[in-house]
């Protein structure tokens, strides 16, 4: 008897709807699973882009080896040449101290740098526009035969650009996945609303407001999406976790994964999926309720 007169909750006034329920959970799950990979891609290419962009910021160097009596003259020639090369902001010979510091990791602090036949190093700082490295190489060969241009920026730049694009693509995928999920959930919500037109009609007749009716649907779809997305995120994370780690093999593909606190990032996806479901169902419900009278 007690149970009989138990209050009816807002949720139970709308009958459970079979296929839209699991369609919503499944969609949210599958989409979140994909989003975890897209997120891993975005994070990994982000790390690469940063690493390569960092390398780009470092300056190129000209290494000058020449017999001692020519070295000062060739160094001046190189500096003059660099000063007139468009795209180069500054050129500066490293001091003996700086050279010692560069070599310290290999030879220890007591290295008698002056006594060694070390090449001279001239540091080049590019300006924003960059310079023509092939042209510079040729001119160096003509003016200072002992000078060699060490320029690692050339081959790194396209990689940094590619990594940047890949990162963008990853985020774009996450956005598209979110939109697709919103669209699917909107369809499912519309189907559920249409299937319950009679129920909605009765609720309106007894004085239910649109917000009350919408809430019953919104709550249900949000919870389903949350549950599905939770499962999808866990499976996605497990999938990323079983990829071989970067330390074992190196390279980009195996670097696809999360690092440190990054592993927590996919946990944001289920609440976001819940939010998407909430917004999509709410919009669909209010639209449909007006149609249904």
């Amino acid at each position, binding site marked *: 008897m007690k149970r009989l*007169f138990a209050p009816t909750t807002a949720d139970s006034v709308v*009958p459970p709807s079979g296929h839209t329920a699991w369609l919503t959970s499944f969609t949210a799950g599958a989409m979140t699973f994909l989003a975890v990979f897209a997120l891993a891609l975005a994070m990994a290419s982000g790390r690469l882009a940063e690493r390569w962009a960092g390398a780009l910021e470092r300056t190129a160097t000209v290494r000058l080896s020449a017999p001692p009596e020519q070295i000062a003259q060739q160094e001046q020639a190189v500096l003059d040449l660099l000063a007139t090369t468009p795209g180069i902001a500054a050129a500066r010979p490293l001091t003996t101290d700086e050279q010692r510091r560069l070599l310290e990791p290999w030879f220890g602090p007591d290295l008698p740098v002056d006594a060694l036949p070390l090449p001279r190093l001239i540091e080049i700082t590019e300006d924003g526009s960059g310079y023509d490295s092939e042209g510079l190489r040729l001119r160096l060969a003509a003016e200072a035969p002992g000078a060699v241009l060490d320029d690692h920026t050339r081959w790194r730049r396209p990689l940094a650009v590619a990594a940047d694009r890949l990162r963008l693509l990853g985020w774009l995928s996450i956005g598209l996945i979110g939109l697709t999920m919103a669209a699917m959930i909107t369809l499912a919500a519309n189907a559920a609303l249409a299937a319950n037109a009679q129920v909605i*009609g009765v609720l*309106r*007749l*007894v*004085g239910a*407001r*649109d917000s009350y009716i919408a809430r019953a649907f919104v709550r249900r779809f949000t919870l389903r999406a949350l549950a599905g997305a939770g499962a999808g995120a866990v499976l996605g994370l497990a999938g990323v976790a079983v990829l071989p780690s970067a330390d074992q093999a190196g390279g980009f593909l195996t670097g696809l994964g999360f690092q440190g606190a990054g592993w927590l990032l996919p946990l944001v996806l289920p609440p976001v999926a819940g939010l998407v479901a909430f917004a999509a169902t709410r919009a669909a419900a209010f639209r449909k*309720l007006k149609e249904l009278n």
Partner: protein
Amino acid sequence: MISFENVAYSYGGGELLSDITLRLAPGSFHFLTGPSGAGKTTFLKLCYAELLPSSGRVTLFDSEVRSLTRDAVAMTRRRIGVVHQDCQFLDHLTLSANVSLPLTVAGRPEAPRDLADLLAWVGLDRLAGSLPPQLSGGERQRAALARAIIMGPDVILADEPTGNLDWEMSLRLLTLLVELNRMGKTVLVATHDLNLIRQAKSQIAARVLRIAKRRIQLAGADL
């Protein structure tokens, strides 16, 4: 409470109701009669804003229906208890849940004692846990009446409330409506049952409205 000014209604073809001007005063008791298909149910639907007039003005509690927002329509319906001709239950909910549905959707707590009393009053206490499809026509109509009055509405509209009831139960239901009217509720009952109307007139000052030739007229004392 409810007033009509030059109201016409048509479902798309010709006008079903034309030039209707009337007022249901607070505390009044009206019957509405007329042949089947004359537009009794349609008239009631205009009274609780399920239909909007094709022309003219319908005013519910001092608000013109066309000016009501959807939320305002919902709030207005909470003040009008309706016994629908086809009952309009939710088949997946128990009878007691259906009867207390207006409270549920209004977010008001239901007092289990009151609900039990109400069900006992309409003789349905033993069926509280049944689903609507398991009930007889008469049981459904009594449940519909219980649902119509559970919110303590100012106005009660009943569409053929005794259609499926035997005479004894019809009298009980009439007594119930008369009692509610004595408590100050405005009551309008659409019915074919002239015996019921005669019976009511012996108990209360009820007026009879008749739909004829698309108009609604006050019937004479010939009933």
